[in-house]
């Protein structure tokens, strides 16, 4: 497609994957990259996706670590929570009290949990060939990249569909929003729970990685039904 120019990130992702597949030494990572990506022109209805959610000890990728991982495979038609996975993992640094209250994951659970490294191969194999969907790309991708780099010495990067980003495009454009912002009205919340409400999705008792992954998958189905179509190209959605 003419629109997919050389410097477009959309076009660079497949190239990056091909490059990494030949370069990586770690077998799991090599397999992950070798599985490749669907073509960016693929209609979203034909794309296999995985909603991914991490709970972390904080927002800073340099100081904080992953505590739990939830993932739910889905397509535009069906979300399959039963085929999903959930792991609690032990962060290299001890948990602080605040994050325990936030996640309801306790010291005891974390102490008996394995290091992320032990689940990494399985996690990568489950993500291979699929498109990862997250709500806010600032967490899952950088935290996973840092954790993999830390343990395997190689990069783990991939395109994501970010439901928060898609939502921002919808609610924060148009003259009305600009006018509201000009007069100092608070911007419309694009947090997961608030966004879901706008699509008539039920509220879940949040802050469990798998439940949030399910919630994210439902949200993407809703967003595509409302603002896009089953024919929308994958490349128009990922980033």
């Amino acid at each position, binding site marked *: 497609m003419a629109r997919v120019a050389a410097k477009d990130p959309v076009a660079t992702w497949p190239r990056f994957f091909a490059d990494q597949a030949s370069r990586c030494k770690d077998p799991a990572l090599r397999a992950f990259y070798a599985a490749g990506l669907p073509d960016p022109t693929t209609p979203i209805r034909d794309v296999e996706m995985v909603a991914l959610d991490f709970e972390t000890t904080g927002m800073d990728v340099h100081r904080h670590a992953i505590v739990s991982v939830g993932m739910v495979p889905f397509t535009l*038609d*069906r*979300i399959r*929570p*039963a085929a999903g996975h*959930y792991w609690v993992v032990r962060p290299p640094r001890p948990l602080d009290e605040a994050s325990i209250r936030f996640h309801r994951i306790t010291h005891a659970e974390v102490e008996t949990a394995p290091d992320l490294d032990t689940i990494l191969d399985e996690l990568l194999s489950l993500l291979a060939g699929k498109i990862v969907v997250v709500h806010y790309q600032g967490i899952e991708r950088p935290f996973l990249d840092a954790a993999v780099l830390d343990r395997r010495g190689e990069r783990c990067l991939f395109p994501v569909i970010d439901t928060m980003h898609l939502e921002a495009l919808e609610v924060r454009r148009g003259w009305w929003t600009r006018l509201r912002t000009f007069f100092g009205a608070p911007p419309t919340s694009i947090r997961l729970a608030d966004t879901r409400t706008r699509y008539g999705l039920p509220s879940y008792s949040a802050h469990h990685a798998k439940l949030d992954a399910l919630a994210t998958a439902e949200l993407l189905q*809703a967003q595509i039904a409302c603002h896009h179509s089953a024919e929308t190209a994958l490349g128009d959605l990922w980033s």
Partner: protein
Amino acid sequence: MEAEVQEIREHLRRFPPFDRLESEWLDQIAASVEVAYYRDGTPIQNYGEPIDSLRYVRSGAVEVYRHNGELYNRLSEGDIFGQAGLLHKHRVRFPAKAIEDTLLYLIPGDVFDRLCNADDQFADFVELSGPRLKATVEQNERENDMMVTRVRRLLSRSPVMINEGATVREAAQMMTEHQVSAILLVVQTSADDDRAFSGQDRNYWRVTGILTDHDFRVRVLAAGGSADTRLADITHEKLVTIQSEESVYEAMLAMLRNNVHHLPVLHRRRPVGVVHLSDIVRYETHSSLYLVSNIYSQGSVKGLVRLMPDVRSAFLRLVEEGATAQMIGEAMSSIGRSLIRRLIELAEQELGPPPVPYCFMVNGSMARNDQTISTDQDNALILDDSFDPEQHDAWFKALAKRVSDGLDACGYPYCDGGIMATNDKWRQPLSVWRRYFEEWISEPDPERLLHSSIFFDLDPVYGEERFVEQLQDLVAQRASQSPLFLAAMARNALNRTPPLGFFRTFVMEQDGRHNNSINIKRRGTAPLVDVIRVHALAVGSRSQNSFDRLDDITRADTLPAGQADKLRYALEFLSMVRIRHQAHDLKHHHAPDNNIEPENVSDGERHNLKDAFQVLSNAQKFLRFRYPMPNR
């Protein structure tokens, strides 16, 4: 268990049929659920498409249609659909569309199949209409002791019997010896007597009466009889008995109807015991039996009015004890009939004996024995043909007025349509009544029949019962032979249609419009009773009670298989909803009415109501087709 499974499980278990499932099943279902989102206005399933899962509305709203595009149901949170397709070749039978942004949980077909096999209640719930209502109604019956316990269980000893040729003294001695309060009178007979049983002495005997402690006072001493009086000379004219296989409930009704406290129990023709009122009271704490005796001991209308709070509490207790609508209807009608009889007795005491024989007839719900707590009076007088208005009418007019005023004072308001014996038109000799019925049947004008259809439920309450029985015969013989009359009655039975069901806080009409409440009598029980009446008239049934009529219809085998049962379950269920609603009103000191607000209807009831309305709607369609207007 993972959080999202927990979340799904917690939602499912709030709604039927999942609310009654065992927790292992809930876990399995929750762990197998898939999820799908449908935007407002998008189709979820189209007719004939393959379907592989049961759909559960997690949030949003869905409309389900018939194949012809007609609205079938509107569903919201916690409702399920798609079962019809899963049960029939895994093809969509009822197309569906999201009418709001909707999130569905999809329960895989194999889990659904296993669940249907493992859990009968679940299977009944998802089966179409009939079985679900049937299951609910039968469950209620099972849970009611009086319906299932057989009379014979109440018997502790075999009956004491005496030849009716013996004297009063001999009977008293025998009763004292055996310490019983009642003795059965027997007479020797021959083997070909259709009421004969063979005694231990190898002779044939027949039960002719019963003598109780009470009879010694009333029939012997008070009447000035001597100890040598023959038993045959003092016994009741009419012996009321019950079969040992009948339910305790039937025994209670027999006592209520006849105002007796002892009931001989027969196994076929052989007497096996006597039940006493107190035996039954042990089984049911409510006082409708005592209430009836109390009614007969009141000396004034004022006294009867004072009993009305007891009538209300008897009604409430029946409901609370889980009595069926049929039981409650019969009990309340018995109380109403006793009230009328007592009012007439009191009136006769003042007015003197009637100038000519007559029968006091009731119509409508009392004739059908399906009264509840708030019903107006419908009655009429049938007079002997020797009636001469100039000479006699003043007496009957006064009688009618006393009964009608008395009923009104007791909370049975005057009939708006003037169906009362106080109305000259409805206080006529038998020959005039015969003409009325002949005209209604042979020249059936739907418009005119509308006002007189209430007379096609008719039953005697006092006086010459044969007058009403003759009219019942006339109706039974003539109605079934007159297609024109049946067509007119059928047409009138279509005037009041049921709604489609409930949707959130609204009543949803067939065309999708909303209402805030529904009159369950006008839109449910009454049209159903109308439908049943037409079928009953067509088969020449003489029964007045709707359930009895359904038995007659079943025997006549004129309806498609299973139809009569569906009508029975629907009637029982709709009546019960109405009764419970009235009980609720009474308990909260509101005047009981028939208006049901959707917010007061539980999820389980909604499903059953929807089914019952569907049964009624289908029955009405069938009626139109079955009794067409003949071409003249």
